[in-house]
């Protein structure tokens, strides 16, 4: 909301400059967005009267002037302008003034032997014009000593204030003036008295009001709706409002100035009688903005015999709008329920100055005054004759009462104020204070709808007292109970694996979302997305991570290792399932090319290793998980695994389906964190006991040819189980497909390390165990022993 300082001064007598005003507003809780003050550069310049003007004794082209700038002295000035002359009103800079044009501070000069104590300025010197065309000539009417703003036709200072939703009262210049007065920045002026008209006729338009509204109105006959006077136009334009016609400008002026929305109907366009009522679903209304709206039940509307002529508290109708031919007007001033106005405004999506104020609560105490002062202004500016007002509802709504225990202030704010100090602050805000045995009985002014409970009162006192005077208290000491969250452990293992964390949108687009689900019904759509691209909650982290991956590749940054730790979203039978997940993606080559590093593409086993390593951080060992050769459709079939622990799904790994990657080789793994993470990490779990045997080690290598249908992982895992005590380790050191092996077979070779904890293994023991291993692989793996090496 824009506040013009000149306008403000209609409500507040103050000498404060615009910066003091802005600072006070900030301190009071009204956020200042910007200050636009053309006077900043011109504040030291004054209107001066050229009392005498003669030729310079030593220079033909120069003049020697005596100027009066209202401070009781005459200043001798040498001036070179052709247009300087006696009795001219000019813009004058005293010594010490900074000249905007050259940013030089003016000092006393001596020109051709004559001292000069200031400067009579040109428009160029004030940065108001590019060319120097002599000194500025001001109008006769200005007084020496005046500031130069008005004479120069410059608009006044404007402060743009952002009003918090609770302060409907500050959506008016009057409200801002009250705030400033409460902080002792000037004194609040009384609102202008309204006229008392004699012998008024009854309002000839009959009005009926259905519902609990305060509604007043009157007919004003024989007005002339011409242009507004300059002062009114200037004030409106200064705060960014457009001057339209006198009638409209007057209502806008009172809306912005007093926070009192009014509506003027062209009375000659009203058909029959006026009814204020609630709307019915499907009723149509064409507003002043030219748009037609279809209404719901329960919106407050003002109707005539032809239909709706105004959406109460929001916007007038096109059919009864005032124009330059308007002769008779029906002027309305009312109070409507803020919630109803808010609902209507939101539903129809209409923004207006009236709605902004009504939905935050206007001052019910100004309904009657608003009508009267608007009447006075109309008659003053447009002429005409008013009727008696029609009045519905209680014009004098009872004021809110709050009982306030002054001790509450110290309790909440931590500052001790005397009851007198508290009383003073509250009275500054227009609150009536009665002290009943140390409980203050407060009567809240009609414009402060936000003050309802003791805490609201505490805030009022605190902000006037100043938040800066709130003392410092430290929280009591508490034990340090932090333990790293599982997410932090995940992050640690991911950075150790060389992954860079990304944060990508939780939203994705319909096409990519559908690539990630089997059932489109499981997608969660936003009702009001920013764009189609961000319209669905991603069903998998990989969906939005892939976009980031592709962008990097397009721009030539390959061999990526990205991970993200976030939620993914699915709908299962209308239930929203939010799953916290970890996803890691590798692309391109395992290493950037470098003379020391092997060169190879990433593959599914890199993703598998990443996954296994993260699981290990949470105590889930590789041998305790099961891997099935299948996975979601966004992985390449045949290159994907589903990881489970018993029935629990832990995650997936695999190569991303080439259709989704624009030919980038990308492998990924995903873990459903809730299924692997303990609620809290136990930092104090004892590791399992380990036996470090000193007995000699026996190594045996085995080589088999087995059918490809046999899964090698479980086979190798199970060999250890043949004798867990003696077999310390089994390592697959060769896996071979191709030449010399039939197409449906593979060759495997593994090393078995055998060691007893308590004795040297005998040759018989070793041979017997080896035979068991051979039998096992032959039996379970349909393996054909190739040889046995030592």
């Amino acid at each position, binding site marked *: 909301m824009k506040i013009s300082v000149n306008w403000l001064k209609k409500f507040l007598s103050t000498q404060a400059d615009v910066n003091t005003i802005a600072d006070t507003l*900030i*301190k*009071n*809780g009204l*956020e200042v967005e910007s200050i636009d003050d053309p006077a900043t550069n011109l504040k030291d310049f004054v209107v001066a009267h050229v009392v005498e003007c003669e030729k310079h004794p030593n220079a033909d082209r120069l003049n020697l002037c005596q100027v009066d700038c209202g401070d009781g002295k005459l200043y001798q000035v040498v001036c070179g302008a052709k247009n300087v002359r006696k009795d001219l009103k000019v813009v004058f800079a005293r010594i010490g003034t900074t000249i905007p044009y050259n940013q030089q501070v003016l000092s006393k000069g001596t020109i051709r032997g004559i001292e000069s104590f200031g400067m009579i300025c040109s428009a160029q010197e004030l940065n108001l014009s590019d060319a120097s065309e002599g000194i500025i000539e001001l109008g006769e009417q200005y007084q020496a000593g005046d500031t130069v703003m008005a004479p120069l036709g410059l608009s006044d200072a404007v402060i743009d204030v952002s009003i918090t*939703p*609770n302060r409907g009262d500050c959506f008016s210049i009057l409200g801002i003036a009250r705030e400033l007065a409460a902080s002792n920045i000037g004194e609040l002026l009384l609102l202008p008295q309204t006229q008392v008209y004699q012998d008024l006729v009854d309002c000839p338009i009959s009005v009926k009001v259905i519902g609990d509204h305060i509604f007043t109105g009157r007919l004003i006959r024989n007005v002339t709706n011409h242009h507004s006077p300059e002062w009114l136009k200037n004030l409106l334009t200064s705060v960014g409002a457009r001057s339209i016609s006198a009638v409209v400008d007057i209502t806008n002026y009172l809306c912005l100035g007093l926070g009192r929305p009014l509506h003027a109907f062209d009375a000659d366009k009203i058909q029959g009688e006026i009814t204020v009522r609630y709307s019915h679903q499907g009723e149509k209304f064409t507003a002043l903005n030219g748009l037609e709206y279809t209404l719901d039940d329960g919106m407050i509307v003002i109707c005539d015999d032809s239909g709706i002529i105004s959406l109460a508290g929001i916007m007038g109708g096109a059919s009864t709008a005032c124009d330059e031919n308007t002769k008779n007007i029906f002027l309305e001033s009312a109070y409507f329920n803020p*919630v109803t106005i*808010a609902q209507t405004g*939101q539903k129809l999506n209409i923004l207006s100055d009236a709605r902004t104020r009504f*939905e935050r609560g206007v001052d019910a105490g100004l309904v009657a005054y608003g009508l009267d002062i608007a009447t006075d202004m109309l008659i003053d500016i447009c002429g005409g004759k008013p009727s008696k007002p029609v009045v519905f509802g209680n014009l004098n709504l009872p004021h809110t009462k709050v009982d306030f225990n002054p001790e509450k202030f110290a*309790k*909440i704010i*931590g*500052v001790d104020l005397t009851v007198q100090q508290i009383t003073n602050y509250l009275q500054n805000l227009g609150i009536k204070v009665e002290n009943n045995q140390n409980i203050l009985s407060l009567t809240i002014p009609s414009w402060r709808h936000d003050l309802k*409970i003791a*805490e*609201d009162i505490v805030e009022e006192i605190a*902000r006037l007292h100043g*938040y800066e005077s*709130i*003392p*410092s*208290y*430290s*929280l009591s000491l508490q*034990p340090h109970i*932090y333990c790293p*969250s599982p997410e932090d*452990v995940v*992050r*640690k293992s*991911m*950075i*150790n*694996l*060389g992954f*860079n*964390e*990304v*944060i990508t949108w*939780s*939203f994705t687009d319909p096409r990519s979302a559908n690539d990630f689900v089997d059932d489109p019904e499981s997608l*969660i759509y936003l009702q*009001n997305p*920013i764009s189609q691209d961000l319209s669905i909650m991603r069903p998998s982290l990989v969906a939005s991570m892939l976009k980031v991956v592709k962008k*990097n590749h397009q*721009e030539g*940054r390959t061999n990526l*290792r*990205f991970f993200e*730790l976030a*939620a993914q979203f699915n*709908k299962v039978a209308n239930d*929203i399932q939010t799953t916290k997940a970890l996803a890691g993606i590798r692309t391109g080559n395992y*290493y*950037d090319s*470098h*003379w*020391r590093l092997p060169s190879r593409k990433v593959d599914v086993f890199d993703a598998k290793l990443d996954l296994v390593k993260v699981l290990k951080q949470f105590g889930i060992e590789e041998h305790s998980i099961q891997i099935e050769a299948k996975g979601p459709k966004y992985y390449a079939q045949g290159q994907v695994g589903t990881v489970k622990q018993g029935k629990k799904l832990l995650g997936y790994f695999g190569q991303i389906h080439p259709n989704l990657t624009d030919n980038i080789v990308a492998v990924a793994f995903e873990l459903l964190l809730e299924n692997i993470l303990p609620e809290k990490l136990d930092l104090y779990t004892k590791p399992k006991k380990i036996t470090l045997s000193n007995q000699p080690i026996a190594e045996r290598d085995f080589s088999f040819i087995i059918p490809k249908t046999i899964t090698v992982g479980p086979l190798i895992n199970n060999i250890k189980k043949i004798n867990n005590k003696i077999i310390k380790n089994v390592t697959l050191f060769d896996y071979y497909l191709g030449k010399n092996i039939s197409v449906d077979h593979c060759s495997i070779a593994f090393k078995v390390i055998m060691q007893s904890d308590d004795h040297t293994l005998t040759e018989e023991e070793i041979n017997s165990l080896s035979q068991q291993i051979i039998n096992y692989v032959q039996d379970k793996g349909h393996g054909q022993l190739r040889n046995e090496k030592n």
Partner: protein
Amino acid sequence: MLEKWLQEIEDANNLQALDEVRVKLLGKNGLITQQLKNLGSLSIEDKKTLGLAINQQKDKCLNALVERKKILEEQAINEKLMANAVDITLPITDEVWGSIHPVAKAILDINNYFSQFGFTVKTGPEIDSEYYNFDALNIPTHHPARQNHDTFFLKGMAGLLRTHTSTVQIRTMQKQKPPLRIIAPGRVYRSDSDATHTPMFHQIEVLVVEKNLNMGHLKTTLIDFCRWFFAQEDLPVRFRPSFFPFTEPSAEVDISCQKNKDSLKIGHGGNSWLEIMGCGMVHPQVLVNCNIDPQEFSGFAFGMGVERLVMLKSGISDIRSLYEGDSRWLKHYGSNGVVA
């Protein structure tokens, strides 16, 4: 003679040559061996004196041989090693070492900071209900304050994307009785997208509910936090009144900064203020909504946008860069400090 022999030992420049000298002197038919053999033919007296002299010479030669051998062996090893000498100026490559996103890092650091004061980390769902996001927080259905949230709603079903992590306040207070100190980080969503706003960002909400808590506690906690976060112990922090439906009194927190044409420097002696978060004393209605007696307990809460804090601290000017996942950006601004 001894001088000559010692010189020969000294002159042997490889192990083979040295061994030849040894054989020449001390071998079966070596010069010294011969001399010792010849002693047999001498008188006892002569044997004694001459024998002593020869043995002394022999010892000296032996010592010299051992010494020389050590040196030659070392030389031999070094020669062998030097044959395998590498160009130590060859460029090495960075270890594969990942990074944490600066936003995640800030959350982690802030969690850590508050944990020192007995705060625990709480989280809640990102898709939530109007009740937790608004009603329970004293934001009435049609209040303009609710409109200011630019909420994303779900299509065809109840639910919204939480607009703040204050939802976690309510969930926690309804489950756990005071005294409470919690910190709630997480993703939040607002239907807003321009140069300084993104539809998704991160927020951290801090809540304390205890007996005898006042705004002075809030102020101190916040000032200390700001100074810690920006690592400036004299950072000026300003509180100014504001409005949030779930706190009363409410305040906004500004820090001092120097704003110039293209730069912004946070710190003492600045020419401007930067708003960094909102805070206040928990509104009694919010406590009542969570079955906490506002007569007995009071609370304070504050909420901050993590992106904004990170951008200010790291001098990142474009909020979108945080989500673009440019690998160069991630490596530059990411943190590879060990966590947890």
